[in-house]
């Protein structure tokens, strides 16, 4: 493939002068990469070195916010959008007639370095369409990263996408060069993947995911850390969560579960990558993917239910110790009988509710089966999943703020991990009242229906779930009116049944 001229199917697709060409290529390849959701630069803390460029901040740094309100933290680009696959949902599929371009490794390195020096970005997010074969693509990606780490002495954050079907030697190299590695699952079930992406196979996704998870654990154990990643500290307060029992959390990461994992790794029965990687990559002395791995699933392209999505996420977190599962609301781009028609509204609210459910799994000690059930496979879009759970379990409320345990506090709508920590610390010095809760910025408009403070309630306490539901949805009436696909049934308010105003 020539540097400036690109051919596909023997047809000239793109010609340009070098400098102008780079801008055009950037326009094409940034446009092609924008549907990938992950743009986080978090998970790794690394200070700068003399002679090198860059560092990494564990909390992540967002450098800008695009017109859609999403953060721009990394230079998110594809290596090439000339893909040989024909996935139905993808804008870069081979059957689409769009301008195609391919970056050379040097071009990507220059862009990253120059943008980084100007404080535009925190690092590089590199993905690609499949050029020729998965191995060939992955080789090019590794070449780019190697160049960036060695010749250009880049010490910032790199997120690399693993191409499904690439050999594990190449994935090993990529993991050593990058900070986070991810493979997009796209669909939660094998059937939907077969239907949507006939060239891909679920085993090509899950097998490397498992290999990467085991290799990360192996490197962590070797450097004296726990085999599994440390999770948000609030999980240490919880009796039980998807990350394991509480006693396992205390003392060194994830305790017992992590210990079992370490034994499994050391018993050589694991699938960690063991073949020698590229000598240069080993010589860099870097840890394998210190920022862990993540994945992405598309929402609303095929008929998957929230039940499937949330249960798949939970399984991924528990089995592969994933740092994040991202959800991407499908934007109708392609015409296909199997896809939603062009002009179908983007399911943004559904995506939002799924992220809320995801947070409940990771920070609040919920299990997937508490959030959705097989009988009711979709979330209620009119109300958030935590309120919804609370309304279905009114027998547990009201909760006394001054005596409740942390895991019970965390289940009250309107109180999150920060709120729980504030309440716990303030309770050490004396009893709390509603004024203090307000000062602590607890969201009383939701919490008020579920709590008591020293036996007192804020206003009249009515524990009827239909009444609370009406109050909660009424507070954001404008929002509720916009929810068209909520499936909510409206009916006339009745003074006699709703407010108990009996005759006589």
């Amino acid at each position, binding site marked *: 493939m020539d540097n400036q001229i690109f051919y596909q199917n023997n047809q000239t697709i793109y010609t340009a002068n070098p*400098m102008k060409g*780079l*801008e055009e290529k*950037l*326009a094409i390849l*940034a*446009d092609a*990469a*924008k*549907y990938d959701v992950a743009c986080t630069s978090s998970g790794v803390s690394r*200070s*700068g*070195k*003399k*002679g*090198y*460029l*860059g*560092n990494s901040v564990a909390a992540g*740094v*967002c*450098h*800008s*916010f*695009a*017109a*859609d*309100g*999403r*953060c*721009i933290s990394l*230079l*998110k680009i594809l290596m090439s959008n000339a893909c040989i696959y024909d996935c139905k949902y993808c804008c870069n599929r081979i059957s689409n007639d769009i301008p195609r371009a391919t970056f050379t490794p040097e071009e990507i390195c220059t*862009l990253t370095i*120059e*943008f980084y*020096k*100007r*404080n*535009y970005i925190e690092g590089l997010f590199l993905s690609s369409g499949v050029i020729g074969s998965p191995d060939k693509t992955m080789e090019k990606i590794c070449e780019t990263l190697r160049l960036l780490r060695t010749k250009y002495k880049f010490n910032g954050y790199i997120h690399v996408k693993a191409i499904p079907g690439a050999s594990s030697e190449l994935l090993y190299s990529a993991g050593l060069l990058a900070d986070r590695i991810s493979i997009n699952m796209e669909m939660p079930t094998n059937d939907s993947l077969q239907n949507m992406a006939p060239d891909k196979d679920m085993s090509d996704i899950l097998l490397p995911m498992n290999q990467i998870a085991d290799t990360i654990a192996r490197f962590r154990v070797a450097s004296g850390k726990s085999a599994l990643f440390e999770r948000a500290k609030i999980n240490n307060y919880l009796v039980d969560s998807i990350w394991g029992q509480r006693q396992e959390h205390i003392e060194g990461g994830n305790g017992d579960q992590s210990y079992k994992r370490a034994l499994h790794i050391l018993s050589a029965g694991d699938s960690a990558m063991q073949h020698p990687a590229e000598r240069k990559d080993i010589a860099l002395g870097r840890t394998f993917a210190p920022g862990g791995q993540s994945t992405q699933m598309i929402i609303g392209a095929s008929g998957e239910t929230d039940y499937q999505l949330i249960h798949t996420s939970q399984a991924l977190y528990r089995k592969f110790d994933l740092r994040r599962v991202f959800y991407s*609301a499908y*934007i109708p781009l392609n015409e296909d009988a199997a896809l939603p028609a062009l002009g179908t509204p*983007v399911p*943004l609210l559904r995506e939002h509710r799924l992220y809320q459910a995801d947070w409940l799994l990771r920070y609040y000690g919920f299990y997937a089966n508490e959030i959705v059930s097989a009988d009711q496979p979709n979330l209620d879009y009119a109300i958030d999943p935590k309120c919804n759970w609370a309304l279905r379990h009114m027998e547990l409320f009201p909760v006394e703020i001054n005596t409740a345990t942390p895991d019970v506090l965390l289940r009250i709508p309107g109180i999150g991990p920060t709120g729980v920590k504030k309440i716990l610390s303030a309770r050490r010095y004396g009893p709390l009242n509603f004024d203090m809760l307000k000062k602590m910025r607890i969201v009383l408009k939701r919490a008020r229906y579920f709590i008591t403070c020293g036996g007192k309630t804020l206003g009249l306490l009515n524990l009827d779930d239909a009444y609370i539901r009406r109050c909660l949805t009424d507070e954001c009436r404008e929002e509720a009116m916009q929810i068209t696909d909520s499936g909510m049934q409206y009916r006339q308010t009745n003074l006699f049944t709703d407010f108990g105003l009996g005759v006589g």
Partner: protein
Amino acid sequence: MLTCIYEASASGLVHKNIRLMLEPIQQYTLFDEYVHVSSDSAKAAKVMDAIVTRISYQVYRELALASMAYEEDVLDNIYHVLLLGFHHGPSVLEMVQYADVMRNAEIRLRVKREANRFQEFVRFHQIGNTYISHIEPKSKIVTYLGPIFADRMPSIDFMIIDDVHKEALVHPADSPYYLRRLTEEEFNRLQKTEEVNDQYTDMWKTFFQQIAIQERHNERCQTNLFPKWSRKHVTEFM
């Protein structure tokens, strides 16, 4: 500020009868007497020593962070927190039941948030081999940004100029950074750096345009996360 605190405590007046303010004073009151205090490094060093030895270095660091703030009552607040600190010791900043300590915590949080915002939104322009940026923050946060950017780009010459307070943070490659108060002439010369654009400035604008998904357009969310007042020197909005 430290000299002012020294003078206030040495004046022998009752603490509640003193109010410390930063010049220029916006609104004078009728019945108060105003005493101007010029800075004196010996007195300032005495106060600093007293804070570090009698309270703690951590408290000194936190109060230094608060002193970057633009709030009118910040100096008076620091003075009162120090009085409490000399009484209670190093744990004074956790005693939020005191209104002054609570107010101090609020100020520090705001300054930290503002500084973190500028850590994200500082934009450099390349002039020769030097990278220069201009910012217009509300608080004096360049000293907060110093170590962050020195760690990020240790082997690069760069300069961050605070246009509001006319201060510049200068970092020569592979050396420690320093702070410099700019003269009028220097300041005017440095104003022109933003006119220098190169192909990467244009490319960044292109990238910024392309990466947004039109179908998800959400200006309110963007403005919420990236307020308009902080966009003044940001390349993609220029």
